[in-house]
């Protein structure tokens, strides 16, 4: 594999018998795994030759074309899959996206940089704050103020981002449990998400679409006792997570449904452009937070969980472990967070104080221009990338020197992961489509934009 990354500090043996990246690097990627590389059952992925072989044994059948979606009950986003099935085996599939194309990129061209934040909230609407942070960092990089961001703001961004990542993974894991028929763990995870949302609501004023991050910092400081409440919430969340784990990870039926289904090799995954938990499930320890640290991520100690087989179960397990790692980061961030301002002190970027706006013409003009014309971003272009809920979330922005982006493109990880759906479900059963889709975690808002 060509994309070896820097060695990680403090690697530990991760849960569920997964090898650490060190072990992978030392050679036996699959040998170390306690789980077989090629699943023994027939329904999961077969290659073309094997399929032919099966055809030879069985009576000839006529393939049936059947349409799944776009309003199928359990797909995360709205997607249409045209299946050619033989019995219950998928012989061919055509995954069609675009049912939630809301013209994010076009809308962004008509909005000032600050006004784009609400739209980013609705990209990956499961972890809005990560999108907020990603977009803010891109614009800040273009303006050239990344180095001047207040430290406290950076820590707050890490904290809200990691909370968001936890809610993202919780939703994904819960939904995947529901998709294989386990409704109860789903609601338990939603319950935990609810706790975290309440915290975020206290901080940002909104439950889901926060628009909390601003260019140059965040909109407001942490409320009183936020840290204590977060600590307590994380504590009780851990016990619920353990419960969920006992219902799923140790459940034979669940393991049977997930193990070895829709497996993909690291090479293929990289070739398809996968990032995030999906890529890590194949054993590649690539995490933007670790490999290209932004904000203050280089100050935290955390591990990058990886899988070995690259199947649905690995994707599930990686996400589950990432929740724990996010909690670790939160723990450290809560300890390290310094006092100070949360917004950059620069009148060209930050809004003046309300009192000054009402009483001096200078601040009035500043406020007016920032609202109507937007923050003037120097002409140029930038690509900035962060670790989103589903992988590398990139923003490519072209500025023409005005207050609105001339072009704003999103490299949305779930769009890139979705392109491999056809490949993953080839040869699988109908019953495997939805769990596979769930573990790819295609989010309509992000995929179709």
């Amino acid at each position: 594999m060509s994309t070896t990354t820097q060695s990680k500090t403090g690697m530990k043996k991760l849960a569920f018998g997964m090898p650490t990246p060190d072990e992978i690097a030392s050679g036996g990627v699959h040998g170390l795994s306690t789980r077989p590389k090629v699943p023994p059952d027939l329904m999961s992925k077969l290659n073309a030759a094997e399929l032919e072989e099966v055809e030879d044994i069985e009576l000839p059948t006529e393939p049936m074309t059947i349409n799944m979606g776009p309003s199928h009950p359990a797909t995360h986003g709205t997607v249409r899959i045209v299946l050619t099935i033989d019995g219950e085996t998928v012989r061919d599939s055509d995954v069609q996206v675009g049912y939630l194309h809301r013209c994010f990129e076009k809308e962004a061209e008509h909005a000032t940089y600050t006004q784009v934040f609400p739209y980013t909230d609705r990209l990956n609407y499961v972890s809005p704050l990560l999108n907020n942070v990603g977009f803010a960092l891109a614009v800040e990089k273009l303006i050239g103020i990344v180095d001047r961001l207040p430290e406290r703001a950076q820590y707050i961004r890490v904290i809200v981002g990691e909370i968001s990542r936890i809610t993202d993974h919780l939703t994904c894991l819960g939904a995947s449990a529901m998709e294989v028929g386990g409704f109860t763990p789903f609601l338990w995870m939603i319950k935990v998400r609810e706790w975290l949302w309440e915290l975020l609501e206290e901080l940002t004023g909104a439950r889901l679409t926060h628009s909390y991050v601003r260019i140059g910092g965040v909109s407001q400081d942490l409320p009183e006792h936020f840290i204590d409440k977060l600590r307590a919430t994380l504590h009780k969340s851990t016990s619920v997570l353990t419960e969920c784990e006992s219902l799923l990870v140790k459940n034979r039926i669940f393991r049977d449904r997930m193990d070895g289904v829709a497996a993909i090799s690291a090479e293929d995954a990289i070739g398809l452009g996968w990032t995030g938990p999906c890529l890590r499930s194949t054993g590649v320890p690539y995490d933007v937070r670790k490999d290209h640290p932004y904000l203050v991520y280089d100050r935290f100690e955390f591990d990058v969980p990886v899988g070995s087989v690259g199947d649905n179960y690995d994707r599930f397990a990686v996400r589950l472990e990432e929740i724990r790692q996010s909690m670790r980061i939160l723990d450290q961030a809560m300890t390290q967070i310094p006092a100070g301002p949360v917004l950059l002190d620069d009148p060209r970027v930050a809004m003046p104080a309300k009192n000054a706006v009402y009483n001096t013409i200078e601040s009035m003009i500043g406020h007016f221009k920032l609202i109507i014309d937007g923050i003037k971003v120097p002409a140029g272009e930038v690509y900035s990338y962060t670790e989103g809920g589903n992988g590398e979330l990139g923003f490519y922005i072209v500025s023409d020197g005005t207050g609105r982006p001339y072009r704003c493109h999103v490299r949305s990880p779930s769009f890139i992961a979705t392109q491999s759906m056809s490949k993953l479900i080839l040869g699988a059963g109908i019953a495997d489509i939805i769990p596979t889709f769930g573990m790819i975690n295609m989010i309509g808002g992000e995929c179709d934009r």
Partner: protein
Amino acid sequence: MTDSILMFLAEHTAVAALLKLVLLVLGFVMPLASLSTWAERRQSAMMQDRLGPNRANIGPVKLWGILHFVADAIKMMFKEDVVPAKVDRFLFALAPVMAIAPVLITFAVVPFGPDLCVGQVLSVVTDPTTCKATIPLQVARMDVGMLFYFALASLAVYGTTLAGWASYNKWSLLGGLRASSQMMSYEVCMGLSLMGAFLVYGSLEPNAIVTAQGSNILNWGIFTQPLAFVLFFTAAIAETKRAPFDLPEGEPELIGYFVEYSGMRFGIFFLAEFIETIFLAAIVTTVFLGGWQVPGLDSSGFGSFHLPHLAVVLLQVVVWSLKILLLCWLQLLIRWTLPRFRPDQLMRLGWKQLLPLSLLNIIITAAVVLWRSGGK
């Protein structure tokens, strides 16, 4: 007065059967099936930290949300009945009937109490054989009762398959196919796993099996045939098509063989599913939990503590009901705990695991029975 009525019933078995049928189906099965929809919703709510339905009220009466199922029933009855274009109208209409009728009919062989001793209902009966006439608390007592059950239960598969096929919908067809393969596969296992019990109790007649188990709890099927109990319970849940075997329905995948059914036709499928769970509980109770037997209670009472015959019978009927409720509840727990199988895994479980085990069970049981009977 009472005696004469009972006497009349004992002599006119057809009338008695009708009465029992009404009593059992309308007085027990149907309400219980409806109630179990409520129980399911409340049970799942409880497991999921929720409250569950609790709003429906008639005046100030709320009854912990029980009224919601009444609302469900009324609403379904008055809902538009959509028959999609291009469906096979006859089979489309037949399918729900085929789904519910076999289960209701098979209740005929389930004994829900001991024989009622006519003429001595208020006195202590020490020896039931001395009764001048008896009324069996079972709609139809047939020597081949269990065979009758298997014969009819296998008809239920037509309901689902026809529903899937007649709906002119590829998804429902898939559901129907899944249902037929699943039900046929598991019927084999069901039959074979009960074989051991037949060997032990030496009868195919349900009431005889119950009587043979006696009031000694250690003689009940669950202790004499523990493996068969697990096998049968598993296979029977699969037969009811409920989680974790709800593949024909499989909401996130297929939506089910009844995807095109609306209104009360769908309601019937819905109800049939719950009746099947009750029926499953009844069969398991009969074969493995001693049916209407109460531990330590014989026809005269608890050992030396004598009870009038009517009290004994009533107690036994109540205990029988409780056993069924317990099993229904157990199924709910399973339903809300386990994820769903995949078709191939289901087939593998059925044919590669349950079937060999039930064959093994027969061989072992046969050997033990042969050994115990001294090779005769």
